[in-house]
């Protein structure tokens, strides 16, 4: 393998090249060489040592993800609310569980969650291994006891958790026009989209929260969405931390694949990107804990148009494991 022949996005080959060149390589490393990281994402993904990622586990997780046996009445699977065709999100404002129970929050897009630091809108799970088991047990979602699930699918709870978490880690979105643009291909974004990028980073103040390769700071912000009629209709992060300052705060969602993941916000209350842009343009819903970064943006109509065009450039290539699900459009 010659040096320097590796394009930045060929991370799998990059890893192998390095591995080949080095003597005494740790065999354990080879086990982890199962993901192709799309352009724009970090090569390093934090994976717990207790659950090293493997192709077998990803495949098992993929099957469990679509397995309706995980719900009490065998009516829904993970994929019901996290539709691969919609960047693993849900077209409905809020998730619908078994017996058509209506949930409280919108099912988020499960892309690039391997880079996440907190899970669920309120961050109540610290790891993916912990997170994937909760919807199974939630009475308004799948309503299953873990021993029952184990019995149904013939796997231990740990095996289920590890497989589902590995699969979710393998769901990646990158290689969008934006990624090519910021890596030097100045033609990858149209002029309109480039104008939108300037609004995104400048007057729009979007990068305050939607920052980095995953377009999220992985933090919790009160943008006022939960403030209705003089009160918080959803406590958000505060229900986890008990801190008053966290009332109405929710985790910043990724903006990758944003054009595919409507409706928006933690409660799916905004149906279109235009509504989202308008919402932030007016500074959100004023409330006692509104994030200090929210204020009226006074965007012009043209700026809003370009901003929407830029956001649409964040559609990229989605893979799960090494399977390409959708190329950018």
């Amino acid at each position, binding site marked *: 393998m010659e040096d320097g022949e590796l394009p930045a996005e060929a991370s799998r080959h990059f890893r192998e090249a390095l591995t080949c060149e080095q003597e005494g390589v740790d065999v354990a*490393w080879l086990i982890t060489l199962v993901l192709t990281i799309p352009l724009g994402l970090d090569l390093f993904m934090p994976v717990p040592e207790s659950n090293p990622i493997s192709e077998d586990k990803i495949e098992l997780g993929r099957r469990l993800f679509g397995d309706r046996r995980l719900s009490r009445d065998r009516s829904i699977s993970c994929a019901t609310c996290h539709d691969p065709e919609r960047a693993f999100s849900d077209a409905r404002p809020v998730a619908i569980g078994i017996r058509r129970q209506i949930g409280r929050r919108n099912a988020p897009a499960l892309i690039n969650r391997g880079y996440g630091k907190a899970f669920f809108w309120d961050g109540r799970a610290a790891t993916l291994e912990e997170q994937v088991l909760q919807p199974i047990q939630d009475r308004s979602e799948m309503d299953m006891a873990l021993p029952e699930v184990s019995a149904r699918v013939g796997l231990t709870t740990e095996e289920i958790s590890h497989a589902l978490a590995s699969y979710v880690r393998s769901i990646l979105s990158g290689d969008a026009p934006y990624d090519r643009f910021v890596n030097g291909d100045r033609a990858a974004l149209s002029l309109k989209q480039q104008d939108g990028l300037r609004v995104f980073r400048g007057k729009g103040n979007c990068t305050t929260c939607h920052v980095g390769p995953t377009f999220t700071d992985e933090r919790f912000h009160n943008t006022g969405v939960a403030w209705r009629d003089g009160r918080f209709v959803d406590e958000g992060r505060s229900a986890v931390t008990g801190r008053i300052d966290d009332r109405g705060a929710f985790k910043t969602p990724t903006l990758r694949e944003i054009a595919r993941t409507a409706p928006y916000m933690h409660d799916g209350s905004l149906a279109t990107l235009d509504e989202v842009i308008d919402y932030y343009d007016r500074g959100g819903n004023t409330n006692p804990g509104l994030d200090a970064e929210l204020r009226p943006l006074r965007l012009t109509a043209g700026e809003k148009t370009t901003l929407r065009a830029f956001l649409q450039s964040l559609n990229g290539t989605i893979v799960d494991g090494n399977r390409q699900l959708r190329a950018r459009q």
Partner: protein
Amino acid sequence: MNRLAAGVLALLVLASVAPSAQDAERLFKAAINTEMVDGNLKAAIEQYRKVAASGNRALAAQALLRMAECYQKLGDAEAQKIYQRLARDYADQTEAAAVARARLSRGTAPPNANAAGTANRRVWSPGADPSFGTVSADGRYLSYTDWSTGDLFVRDFTTGRNRRVTNKGPFSQSSAFAEESAISRDGRYVAYSWWGTVDGKGNYELRTAPLDGNGPPESRLLVRNDDIGWLAPTDWSPDGKWIAVMIARVDRTVQLGLVSARDGSLQILKSNRWRGASEIFFSPDGKYLAFDSPTGDAQEPSDVYVLAIDGSRETPAVLSPSHEILMGWSPDGRQLLFASDRGGTMGLWAQPMLDGRPTGAPRMVKPDLAPAPLGVTSTGTLFLRASASEQDLFVANVDFDTGKVIGAPVSPVQRYVGTNRTPAWSRDGNLAYVSLRNRIGTDQQVTLVIQSLETGETRELDVPQLNYFQNPNWAPDGRTLLVRGAHVNGKGGIHRVDARTGDVRTIAEAGVGVQESADGKLYYRSLKSETNEAALIENDLTTGARRELFSAASMTLPALSADGRTIAVIVSDRSRQRSTLLLIPVNGDSVRELAQISFQQTDTRPAWMPDGRRIVIRKTQGDGTPELWVVPVDGSPHHKIDLAGPIGNHFAIHPDGRRLAYLAGERKGEVWVLENFLSTTPNSRSDSSSTTLATRRVLEQGAPWDRISPDGRYLARVDNSTSNIQLLDLVTGRTRALTHDGNPEDPDHRYPLASTFSRDGARLAYQWEFEKDDRSVLRVVSTAEQGPATVRTVYDNADVSLAPTDWSADGRWIAAVIRRKDHTAQIGVVGVADGSLRVLKTVDWSRVGGLRFSPDSSLLAYHKPAAEGRFDRDVFVIAVDGSREFVAAASPGDDTVLEWEPTGRRLLIASDRGGSMSVWSVAGTVQAQPTTFELVKSDVGIVSSLGPTRDGSLFYNLLPTGSTTYVAQFDAAKGQLSSAPIQPIQQFKGFNSGGQWSSDGKYLVYASRRDIPAPINVTRVIVPFVSMTTGTVERELLPALSYGNLGRLSPDGRRFIVRGADLKGRSGILSVDAGTGDATLVVPNETCSGVPYWAADGKSFFCYREKQIVQVELSSGAVRRTFAADSQGASASPDGQYIVYGDAGSSGLKLLALATGATRDLIRLPPPSSRVGNSGSIEWTPDSQAVVFYGRVNGDEGMWIAPIDGRAPHKINVAVGPISSWHFNATTGQVVFSTATGFGRLETWKMENFLPKQAGISAKR
């Protein structure tokens, strides 16, 4: 026959007769007892020597091994010879021979003593402050940016030449510059970041240049990307194929990546929000990148991680609440080097590594160093950058009409000197400035300081909501300041900072140099993204309206006139090589050109005089000297302000129109190397000139009273095993007794303490202490090697104790600290010939010292607390004839005397005024106005002088870390720890001891030692209270003691009972208020000589006095009752029933029933197999049913628990030891314990070549 001769004869007799086998066994056990129980190493050596001659080879081998260990502990090179003998002659005794070989392989030194040859020396002083890159693997080349032009150079340490890599011309021709750089391991290439303009748009590039050949190398562009706002190469992979880079994206994402050296392709390994690493280094095998990273939003603290370069895993290598900075890898990749403040000072530590993962605990390599690594060479030499900056703020009284400076400028800031910038006056005359309290090489910690020059009151605001800010300007309201800075989320903007609280409110998103008018308008400079031009912006805070007043290709920050009507800026036209001072009316009237200036750098904002009639600007003359000039607005001639020295680029005029605050002085950087700290590796190939400033560890076991002979060969020290003065030959490692009348068994407790050599080294004056009488006499002993040493008493007065500190050049006078029994302290001189005492000055009792004669002996320098009750000390100089005295150094921090410079004109002091303990030079003959401090050596650590030597060196003691405190859960039923011990204290780690619990069990209380490496009894002890709920120090108590350890907290938690002395020197048992620190003497030493411990009632305490345990009433000091007991450490049971004490006779534990006075054995531990530790390690369980103690039971040393019902004791499984204190928390079931290892240990270092050599000088300097 004197006692010495008798002892020698007896030993000779013993040695001449080989013992029988049985006798040898017995003698071997007795020798162990002598060594381990009595601690008399010398006597033990002689006993082992006799055993070795017994003919029993197995026993002889063991005896030799133990004998070598004794020598090793004594610092005697004889140890090596014995190990060699064991390895050579006792190969059949495999175990002993193997141990000997192992110790030989590591130089016979104690476990961490392979670094005894550790040396730290300066290899380059560029005279400016360049940005250093990295060093090549052979230590020959170092890349750096010369900021006079912005060009990249490579320093060749072999030839001493600097080679130009880029040649862009001066800044007047090109604004481009090289910034960060890294040399490939083979020294053939350098990678560097280059800021340049392409098509009018400035951006960073990554370039490489070959270093082969002689001419200017041709650079090659690897990376240029509009989305990258900043980048820095940090290291090359060992194979030269990859360059590790840190990049900052335009959206403020900071990324760690690899760039292919072949085609420039970039692979991002890891993204962070906006905080990056300060250092990144490849592992020697090229598999890993180590980096440091902040743990939160703030710059500190950081931890160290190791990332596989294929991204497959990241491993935390060093995680702690302390601040850690990566320093590099050992050449074999088995140690990761990092700097950490866990020891209270920034020290170098080494973390053992295996396959990119930490294995085992880190060890401290060096207590103090500049945490700015430039790389580790293949031979294990660490290159470091050190700051020697002298640039800081000054205030001058100026007649602006004439430009004359009235009086000498003063330096009003004496804390963190060299770091203070950007002065701004408030309307009421308060001076605000920023203090860049950087740890060199890392992001800077910015502190906003507001100081009243009238009262000296200083308020420091850390402004935690901002991670960086600059250029503070007072708002018209006088209560807030406007700063340009970055919020913790990384976003830049203009922020309003409350001058009282530090609260921050963001008021604008862009712009620099903001000023506010009285009608609420902001004026600042902004960059127009479309044209890259600088624009002058008016932002109406009321309406939100923004207006561009003016734009130009280049302009300084704007200055708003006091009436708010006019802005002054200097604009520059590079093409015409011209700069112009403009007046821009804010009402839109036409712009006026006030003055044409030859083309200058445009980084200095003008300043308006308060009257609005003149403007002060900085102009750089043709020779590069910056000057300040007054430019009248009416067009009158300009005139220069008559200030000397290089004027920095920040200045401000006081509202009174008569004072000027300005930045002045040179910024300097230095390159240092740390050698031989990993193993006995050869020195690096860099310049090893013997004339370079260097520090070198010469002894791992220093002692507080040690003094160095003028020739640098001998240390005079107290031999505690014999209570005599001895000379340690630093060349041979041998010791020689100077006095022989000391006796550790002496019931009168006589022993030597402080000493000082005469200038010719022929005599030593020393303090001979009579502890029983609480006095000392001054003696002089000859040091000649031939013939018996002669001892003469020079001064003997029952009312006085004299501690000699220095000897006059003519040998006639000895300077001494005088302490009288009426608790008066004085400084004075004693006539050597007649014992006459001349008292020069009466001083506060506490913490006076450092007396040093000037070279002509006319002056004495000394240090003492700045004021009564204060702990920080200042340096004074007093004439020996008493005619005058003046302050030589008075910083808000601690200043202590080290030595005079040979010229006698300046004094060397240790001071923490620069933020770390460093060596400074100050004027020594007259009080300088202002005091001019010159930095000699930064980051020396906590030191005390042992004296100078004729070769221009200074020997000093340095305080390394020692004790560690642990907290663990204790299972009372099993009598064992039930959780792994944790280290709850992370600050001043290693300097803390005596952990105990508050009465409610919520707070961990301990003694934190933060002072000079002096005897423990003059060390300042701070008592922090750590909340076990939050883990934070909620308060720190400063006991009003001149000495004393922590003592014990009373059962009600309201006071400590301490043996020590108050600030007046009244010694005895004191009660210290746990709330205020006030100390009250309860009883003098005559009543109690031992360490006190509380009775269960909390109204009385027990202590030891002449084979009695005495119970004393706290309120009155009256003795309530006494018990016969030969106690060596004791503790009273919580239920008030018993005292357990270590019995001096049996070495066991005895139980004293307080109701009856009856005593019974709890444990009998006859020597030599057993012993009980000191008082701090005997403790009752909360239920009063058992005691725990540290000791050796049947040869098994450790922490033991002994039920009082007679059941056998069992050992508590604690992995660490020896343990000096242990305390139960009755509320939580936890225990806190501290190790005694290394506590109080000192190292002796030598600073070479910082003074001119004193060749041929013997009687005077």
